[in-house]
């Protein structure tokens, strides 16, 4: 996973970049929001870590622009960082489309945990795209066809059309369960 790191403050950027590299991530750094957006337009990435307050373009606007892309090639997970206190900023970040909001300083351990959540989310999003493909989803708008001829988003499909969880054990599991059941019902040899 490649990470775009947008942070105007040199020391914090260098420290975070070093930590991300230590975790094995490939990084691209940008010194403000506008440069980050230009970089993202040239080369979209799956994870963006952005400061909130930056010159030329703040993290909120950067996030809004990423979310406004009509047909993104993949989902981009946006983690917003700030040293501003208060949940109001966090709410603004989430309203702008951020997936996570972290108050500085993010320790190395916290970064590991947050990025694990990011990778898990990206994994689910990739799975969703594959499911869209299996269901005949549109390559551009990603909507999938319903049995009654409509086209709806995958999320709507999962709640409206997909059946409830009616899974049953497969033959292998049925056989295994039968063995377990038989073993537990054997009479005691004592």
């Amino acid at each position: 996973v490649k990470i775009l790191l947008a942070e105007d403050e040199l020391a914090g950027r260098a420290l975070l970049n070093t930590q991300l590299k230590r975790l094995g991530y490939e990084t691209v750094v940008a010194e403000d929001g506008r440069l980050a957006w230009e970089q993202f337009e040239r080369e979209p990435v799956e994870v963006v870590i952005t400061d909130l307050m930056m010159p030329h373009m703040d993290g909120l606007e950067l996030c809004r622009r990423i979310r406004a892309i009509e047909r993104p090639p993949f989902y981009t997970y946006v983690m917003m960082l700030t040293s501003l206190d208060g949940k109001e900023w966090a709410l603004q970040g989430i309203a702008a489309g951020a997936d996570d909001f972290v108050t500085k300083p993010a320790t190395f351990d916290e970064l590991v945990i947050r990025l694990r959540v990011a990778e898990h989310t990206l994994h689910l999003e990739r799975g969703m795209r594959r499911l869209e493909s299996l269901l005949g989803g549109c390559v551009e708008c990603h909507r999938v066809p319903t049995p009654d001829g409509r086209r709806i988003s995958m999320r709507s499909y999962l709640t409206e059309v997909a059946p409830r969880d009616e899974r049953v054990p497969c033959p292998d599991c049925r056989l295994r369960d039968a063995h377990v059941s038989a073993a537990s019902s054997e009479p005691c040899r004592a």
Partner: protein
Amino acid sequence: VETTASRPIDYGALLEELGGQESVLHEMLGILLQTTGECRAVIRRAHTEMDYPGLASAAHKIKGALVAFGARSAAMAAADLELQGRGGDLVAVRRAMARLEDELDRLRVALEAFVGGNDEGGGR
């Protein structure tokens, strides 16, 4: 006598964050020294010109660097200056400015000693 607890930065914790690589720690602290020096100049200029929004913005920026490196005491002073800068109270700004200057002096001396290899306490 300066103890580990009274040091402006916990080098040991920072070294741990950096995976124990001392060369990287030195490099990072050198960058912090450079950044805080630059931000300090901007803060002083804004203070002289009574540009309080500019002062608050510069204080916010230096606070980010200080927080990232765990320089808690200096970060709190920067946070106070940011707050007072937004409030625009001349007396409160002057007081917060003096506090930050003191903290940054302490930090600069400690960083220069560490980066220059003169930190006799070892710092870690």
